[in-house]
């Protein structure tokens, strides 16, 4: 067990270091881009006076030492405080600021994205395991080719196009059954709908889009793994002992494929978040991907630093937690892994870069 503790400690330390580095990088990138953040506080001024510039920077806390700003941000973050958005900030009594808090908006968006990703990942697993096992048992056959090609078409179509096609043919505009937009699991005071049924019906098309996009990758992986494992000694032993085909597959062949798939799912959380931009846009969600694009990608030269930092923070946390969970699960299921320092990440297929 000491192996395991040391392994966990190493991984945690690495994750923390990555997190601190990314926040620092965000700060450095922000400082190196010329901007007049005081413009957020005087939105109607065509030209800012010297006083306005300095007063604005002072109120936003940008006149402090840079290390101070970094430390201060981390300190607030430690207390769960994401700060306030600079956009729409108002000066009260000329000496303090009224900023809209970022937290609620950020958490609402994260909830929507995670709903898509987790449900979609589950759907991918449910589809990929049987399809991959089926293809892996008859490599080179017509059925194998059909499965490989059909799943590839999903990845060759852009997720936005896929989503838009699904949304316009099956979505509310046509059938009136499946709605656009997100519907939370528990209905809050401001929500128009809620509950498990509506939540699922609103998310089913995004999940299908997500699954179609990632299916090719996972079917291929399961297929290769099954084809490899079928000739292992322990599979032959199981057969010799009289186990049925289904039992051989379920208990002896698929677990090792499942392990590989699991690793990939954890590693690909980042990729999934990127793809979420398009799935959310196609189905009218206000998730993390779209929020990130609006905050970070707008053509405007002004950058809302606290909001950007908040988005970077939450994405980093999701990615690191995903990797960590998989690392730990992997180490528990396959103790040899805990001694290795790093594993290869293989992206052999189109769309792996998304």
């Amino acid at each position, binding site marked *: 067990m000491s192996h395991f503790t040391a392994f966990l400690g190493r991984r945690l330390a690495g994750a923390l270091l990555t997190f601190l580095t990314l926040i620092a990088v965000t700060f450095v990138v922000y400082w190196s*881009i010329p901007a007049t953040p005081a413009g957020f506080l005087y939105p109607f001024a065509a030209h800012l006076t010297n006083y306005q510039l300095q007063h604005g920077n002072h109120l936003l806390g940008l006149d402090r030492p840079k290390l101070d700003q970094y430390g201060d941000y981390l300190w607030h973050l430690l207390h769960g405080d994401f700060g306030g958005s600079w956009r729409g900030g108002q000066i009260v009594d000329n000496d303090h600021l009224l900023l809209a808090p970022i937290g609620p908006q950020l958490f609402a968006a994260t909830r929507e994205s995670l709903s898509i990703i987790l449900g979609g990942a589950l759907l991918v697993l449910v589809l990929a395991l049987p399809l991959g096992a089926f293809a892996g048992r008859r490599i080179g056959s017509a059925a194998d080719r059909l499965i490989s090609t059909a799943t590839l078409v999903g990845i060759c179509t852009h997720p936005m196009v896929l989503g838009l096609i699904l949304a316009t043919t099956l979505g509310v505009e046509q059938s009136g059954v499946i709605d656009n937009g997100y519907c939370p699991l528990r209905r809050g005071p401001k929500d128009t709908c809620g509950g498990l049924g509506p939540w699922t019906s609103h998310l089913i098309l995004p999940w299908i889009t997500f699954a179609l996009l990632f299916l090719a990758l996972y079917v291929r992986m399961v297929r290769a793994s099954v084809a490899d494992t079928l000739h292992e000694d322990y599979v032959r032993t199981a057969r010799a002992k009289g186990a049925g085909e289904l039992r051989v597959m379920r208990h002896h062949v698929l677990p090792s494929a499942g392990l590989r798939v699991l690793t990939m799912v954890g590693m690909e959380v980042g*990729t999934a978040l990127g793809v979420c931009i398009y799935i959310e846009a196609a189905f009218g969600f206000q998730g993390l991907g779209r929020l990130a*694009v609006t905050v970070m*990608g707008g053509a405007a030269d002004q950058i809302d630093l606290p909001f950007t930092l908040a988005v970077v923070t939450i994405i980093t946390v999701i990615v690191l937690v995903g990797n960590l969970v998989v690392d730990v699960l992997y180490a528990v299921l396959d103790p040899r892994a805990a001694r290795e320092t790093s594993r290869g990440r293989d992206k052999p297929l189109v769309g792996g870069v998304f």
Partner: protein
Amino acid sequence: MNWILVWRRLRRDRWTMAAIATLAGVVAVSLVGGAIATRVLGHGGDKPFPYATIGDGPVQKPVGIWSHVPDTAQVRLDEYSQMLPPAKGTKTTLFVLGGDGTLGRDEFIRLLDGGRTSIEVGIGGVLFALLVALPVGAAAGYFGGLLDAAVGRFTDTVMAFPMLLFLVFATAKLSPYLAGVGYSWIVPRGVFSDALLIGVFTCFYPMRLFRAQLMTLRHAEFVEAAQMIGASDWRILRRELASHLVPTMLVWGAIAVATNMLLEVSLSFIGVGVQPSTPTWGSMLAVAWGSIYAPRSANPTIWLTLCPTAALVVTVLALNQLSEGFRRALEPRH
């Protein structure tokens, strides 16, 4: 590497040969198809035809496939600004795949021209990625040590994060500075910045590949033999090791061109890619559906989605098969 043997193995692979033929066709049609179609049909892909739309006001729709459209850029309006039919005697011109939206440009010619720009972005991205990945990855793999540790750790970390998001961010901030780079119709404006940024943000995976490849070859006997007769590191890298990276480059490159073309669609949908006036398969889809920031102007006809998507799917599938074929022909044991 025995290239004659590789070619023989490729020749035996029917699916890969079909993919090569498809790709050759796509490239040929993209290169000259637009120019030929412009000459035959008598209008270019950038010229707007206001009469290539059906209905007016908010329910405007582009004309469907195989429509004859009044060949005029002039709109006749009555006193209430309602569109009148064109003047008598106006000649018509043929829109093979219909119009592209409210502007009424020829979708068919834009599809042909767009293929060229899409492929340019795809190949350009690969070249820029190689430009970064090859020296860094090779140096890390060959010399090892601190540089290797740093590169390995860095690529591992970076690849866990949503590259697409960083790419979007960088393109939004940097493409205004790069957008002016272009060369006549050969490299339309925006293509260079797309290719450069896509290349820079996709260079981590090939960097890993090259590094891993050279790490295994670093202590091979032929490298040690070369070191023993006094060859310099540079000479060993150039004369002994470079050819061993070619298979990796081919297998990865074919996939990367396809991925880059899809990334170009991604950028266009965010509205940070090429100018909407420049046709690419991505910008055509974005014009039809509207980008994330700008809603669409007209309801897309099914052809506006189907044509660029079909072109993309065929090209990407063929590139995927090509990469697969390369892999099988170059490393027959796997």
